[in-house]
């Protein structure tokens, strides 16, 4: 199916057919006072040559730093075939076409994506994707409240080990809908959510508990214990998962006795480059019994009246073009193009390939931590197992160190002090399968020099105990 907009002749024919002089006339019923006229701050259009020049200039300003920064978006290897295939004309569209069933290939691709995601999360159904992981959490919170008929409360427990941006986004979206998001503290030693933190909610009406695995610090949560705690009290469990990590760790559908009820997460690690923050895509899966509460599009496989297999959008009666304000969501869409890339990425890697990527990430991160903590001014913040990132504490002011490392064309990690001031001079470091041993050695070397320069006589505090 070609994605070519109307030609001038098409537009003219359509206007003639309805007897309108021009496109502007179609908006006659909007009073002049309600029209914006021109958009202030939006410059005139540029031609291809001008825009290419501008974009190259901007891109060069970013340089090509060596990236040890994770915190929600990860620098993975993307096989060349992924975007070669994704950008073919047959796939190159951001959306599910409006006359969806005319594009059987697009629907088949989404159906295969959904199948892969249910396999990865260990749940029954997947939607066709959401904007991103952060809005996915907001949708999951609203979905859990709709779907939990045992709970009369609109209270959802949200550990502070969940990505701070996800928490902010969820709050922004649900705050005017009477939802109470209660933040739970983490263990300062382990960096995980303790079952003890849940004690004060014993006997109270809670609609859902959110658990991120691995959590924002990269630390592994006690997902079985937390999931069973929630289910025993009538609360649903929303798992926020890293898709790469799921190839190694038990997926949300297998947490505890009954598994998480909803899983969401950021799909970017699956074949989507970092792209200055987006667009990425969110994934969402759930148990069968919650499918009617799930927002977004779902592609189903069916047969036509001659018995031939085909694909169709299903359960559309929940959606906004039919249910209007009562729809499961009025602010979601799928990210068709990025889902296309993710589906091709997963097809190329396979289950075994994804597992090897996850293992390599974990291995390189362990090496990174070992190399950096050889410096006596650097130590791990937490003592629990992690996946592919973990916080390190510096005994010198961390901002200065990060600035100096930037000058060496290195992204050393994420500064945790802004969101977690109690952690002090902490840096969340990450290594994916792309970071070689030589990269890690380079980072350690630069770090040692910068720290030495800052402390002159070395570390200002006592050396570590052996």
């Amino acid at each position, binding site marked *: 199916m070609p994605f070519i907009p109307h030609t001038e002749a098409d537009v003219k024919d359509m206007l003639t057919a309805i007897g309108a002089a021009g496109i502007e006339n179609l908006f006659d019923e909007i009073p002049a006072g309600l029209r914006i006229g021109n958009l202030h701050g939006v410059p005139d259009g540029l031609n291809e040559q001008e825009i290419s020049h501008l974009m190259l200039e901007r891109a060069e300003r970013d340089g090509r730093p060596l990236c040890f920064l994770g915190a929600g978006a990860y620098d993975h290897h993307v096989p060349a075939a992924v975007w070669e295939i994704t950008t073919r004309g047959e796939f190159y569209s951001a959306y599910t076409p409006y006359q969806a069933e005319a594009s059987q290939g697009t629907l088949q691709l989404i159906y295969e994506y959904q199948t892969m995601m249910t396999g990865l999360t260990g749940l029954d159904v997947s939607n066709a994707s959401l904007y991103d992981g952060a809005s996915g959490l907001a949708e999951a919170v609203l979905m859990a409240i709709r779907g939990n*008929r045992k709970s009369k409360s609109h209270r959802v427990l949200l550990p502070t080990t969940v990505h701070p941006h996800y928490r902010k986004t969820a709050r922004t979206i649900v705050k005017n809908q009477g939802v109470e998001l209660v933040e739970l503290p983490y263990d300062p030693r382990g960096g995980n959510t303790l079952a003890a933190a849940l004690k004060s909610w014993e006997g109270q009406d809670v609609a859902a508990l959110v658990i991120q695995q691995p959590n924002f610090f990269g630390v592994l949560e006690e997902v079985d214990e937390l999931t069973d705690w929630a289910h025993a009290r009538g609360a649903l469990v929303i798992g926020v998962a890293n898709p790469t990590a799921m190839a190694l760790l038990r997926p949300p559908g297998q947490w505890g006795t009954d598994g998480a009820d909803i899983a969401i997460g950021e799909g970017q690690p699956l074949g989507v480059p970092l792209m200055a923050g987006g667009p990425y895509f969110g994934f969402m899966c759930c148990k069968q019994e919650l499918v*009617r509460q799930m927002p977004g599009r779902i592609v189903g496989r069916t047969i036509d009246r001659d018995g031939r297999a085909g694909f169709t959008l299903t359960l559309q*009666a*929940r959606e906004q073009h*039919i*249910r209007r304000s*009562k729809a499961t969501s009025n602010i979601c869409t799928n990210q068709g193009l990025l889902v296309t890339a993710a589906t091709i990425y997963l097809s190329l890697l396979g289950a075994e390939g994804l597992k090897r990527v996850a293992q390599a990430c974990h291995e390189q991160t362990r090496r990174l931590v070992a190399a950096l903590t050889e410096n006596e001014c650097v130590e791990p913040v937490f003592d629990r197992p992690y996946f592919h990132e973990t916080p390190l504490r510096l005994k010198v002011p961390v901002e200065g160190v990060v600035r100096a490392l930037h000058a060496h064309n290195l992204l050393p990690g994420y500064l945790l002090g802004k969101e977690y001031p109690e952690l002090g001079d902490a840096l969340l470091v990450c290594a994916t399968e792309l970071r070689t041993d030589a990269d890690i050695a380079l980072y350690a070397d630069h770090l040692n020099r910068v720290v030495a320069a800052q402390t002159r006589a070395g570390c200002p505090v006592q050396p570590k105990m052996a």
Partner: protein
Amino acid sequence: MSNIPVELKYAKSHEWARHNDDGTVTVGISDNAQDQLGDMVYVELPEAGQTVTAAEACAVVESVKAASDVYTPVSGEVVEVNEALSDAPEKVNQDAYGDGWLFRVQPSDASELDALMNGDAYAEFLAAEAH
């Protein structure tokens, strides 16, 4: 012409109400409503014990075409719901006034039924709506 039993009461939002001998009120959607909606695929019911207020949405009937709210015609407490619909929502199409009933309410004020239409008035209402 749709089937409109004269002994029932009807709301403008196309629910029917039957005042039972035990004082409870059984609620469903009219034959006309099921016909307009088409093949039912799912029915979401209130919970027994739930308190409902007249004209409040407390159930959803979902057909292949649309998902529509069902408004209770009387206030009170839901005493029973038609569990059979979870496996067989098509009963609403097949027998809207019988096996396709949705829920039963113990009304807090049975006089709310007087505000509803009788069969003849509902037939006229449908005829007017069709024009």
